[in-house]
């Protein structure tokens, strides 16, 4: 995972609330067995509409998605994050995210910034006024900037640190391997095991 400090790119206003992960990537794409190649699947149901924002210039080159309340709720599919990532998005700004989606984003290195609803409205206004306006998400300063709008954003300290250090989850955990060994040595015998099948 690469280190992240500041992301700057074309902002895409997605003026919808409750965009669940079924909308971000429909279930039929979950059948793939690779981690890449999901860019065409992003918002697939809406992409058939030539007027859908990602089908229009300059938004097809967008890297910062600015969405409404409750983005990424629903199914836990991490493919939603991969699809956003493959399309080119490196940050998503919204007033609230689905928990699992937000967790998945951090693991991929996709930054999710929570800002108040009125700030999202202001950013949408800036992006509508001048399509192609860039949005900057500064992870170090925890600020979002777009045109004349600047706002602090929320992200938990741990995810921020990991993104900034570009740390892989498993490596981090395996620093505690002796603690895991110790825990296992105390684990009671009534707890379930799956092998062998009796």
């Amino acid at each position, binding site marked *: 995972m690469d280190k992240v400090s500041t992301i700057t790119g074309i902002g895409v206003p997605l003026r919808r*609330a409750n965009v669940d992960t*079924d909308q971000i990537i429909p*279930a039929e794409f*979950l059948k793939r*067995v690779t*981690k890449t190649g999901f860019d065409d699947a992003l918002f697939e149901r809406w992409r058939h509409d030539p007027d859908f924002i990602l089908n229009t210039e300059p938004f097809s080159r967008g890297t910062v998605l600015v969405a409404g309340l409750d983005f990424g709720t629903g199914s*836990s599919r991490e493919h939603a994050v991969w699809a956003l990532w493959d399309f080119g998005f490196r940050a998503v700004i919204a007033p*609230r995210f689905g928990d699992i989606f937000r967790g998945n984003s951090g693991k991929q290195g996709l930054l999710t910034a929570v800002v108040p609803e009125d700030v999202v409205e202001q950013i949408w206004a800036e992006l509508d006024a001048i399509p192609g306006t860039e949005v900057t998400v500064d992870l170090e300063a925890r600020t979002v900037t777009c045109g004349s709008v600047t706002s602090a954003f929320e992200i938990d300290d741990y995810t921020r640190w990991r993104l900034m250090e570009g740390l892989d*989850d498993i490596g981090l955990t395996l620093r505690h391997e002796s603690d895991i060994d110790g825990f296992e040595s105390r684990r009671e015998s*009534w707890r379930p095991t799956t092998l062998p099948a009796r």
Partner: protein
Amino acid sequence: MNAATNRPRTLAEKVWDDHLVVKGENGEPDLIYIDLHLVHEVTSPQAFDGLRQAGRPVRRPDLTIATEDHNTPTLNIGAQIADPISRTQIDALRTNAKEFGIRLHSLGDIEQGIVHVVGPQLGLTMPGITVVCGDSHTSTHGAFGAMAFGIGTSEVEHVLATQTLPLPPFKTMAVTVNGHLRDGVTAKDIILAVIAKIGTGGGQGYVLEYRGSAIRELSMEGRMTICNMSIEAGARAGMVAPDETTFAYLKGRTHAPEGDDWDAAVAYWKTLPTDDDAVFDAEVVLDGDLLEPFVTWGTNPGQGVALSESVPNPANIADSNERESAERALEYMDLTAGTPMKDIRVDQVFMGSCTNSRIEDLRAFASVIKGKKLADGVKLMVVPGSARVRLEAEAEGINTIVTEFGGEWRFAGCSMCLGMNPDKLQPGERCASTSNRNFEGRQGAGGRTHLVSPLVAAATAIRGTLSSPWDVE
């Protein structure tokens, strides 16, 4: 185990404390040990790929079990799977299970089925354990007093490699359902009413604990239905404290503890219920006496009403986000505000999914349709949650009841819950479904879903319009 503390604690806090490997400091999450990892073909291939690339083994194959469910056909299961992509995912799981030494129940195997039906059925799901799976409805297993949650594919890889997960702390919410359910009102109606009350974001950050007399009176199957849909309220997990109902369900199952282990386990399980003076961060109270059969009208599970009511008018919704979402939902669902819910005709009835496909659900459904005829122009598909449930139902003659009624009796799997296999709605088709998600296109592109209980599904299949079990004698 860990964390001796005298502070009064909730069920969720006790289970959490007993799985603490490393306490997170300075805002770091806690490192939590995972007792049971359930795996299926959709969310695991990339995780195994990740392990392979990093040269890492599966740390505890003996705490891991896999089944094929999301993609599997429910007809002609002996034939090669027609869809090449479904086949690829299933082949990938078979290859990975073999390479990494994981027990797998493949299509055709007696233990194959929906992952959330298989775990409890084998007795692997038990009180006081932690359960994860790359599937949001892992919350189902909380019905046993386990801490169970859905994870993403990266976390699947993490658990495979380390048998632990770094997890942020949670808040607790008591969902208390007092009173007693009337005949015809079920666990599904409770959870649909809870979600309609607190909203699809209402449980966010919380572990819900379902309490109260109406919950205590539920069977394990009913408790699983409720915990299953906790995720639809946005919650991290849902739990029910273990009691005699739980122990009786577990006793004698293949993987349940035996002998001294059983006694030790039960003694521990009895310490798990929330302490009397423990404090929840939030509480919601429902009156079980007043609940009616429920149904959704919209495109998220919070958009529901009692069946006796009408399609709501978005103009009466104060919150602008909710109002817009309701307007869009009515357009997608092709419904007009003010229409009595019971006037809505359906094209299909789907009886299945990890919410309602256990033997008790099938029995309830069959009891209503027995000796009746399927409404003209309506299709009915009944899909048991697992191969074992299917056999059990067949032994009781439920398959015959379904086919004589005019419905289709299928092989086990997720089926039309999410339309990854050939079982899909056609664009514009309307379905009364016992599953858990009514999102746009969930059951097939353009399909329209009304979430209901097995009893409502049965009554609807008889009358052809959304109906309450109170409408059929």
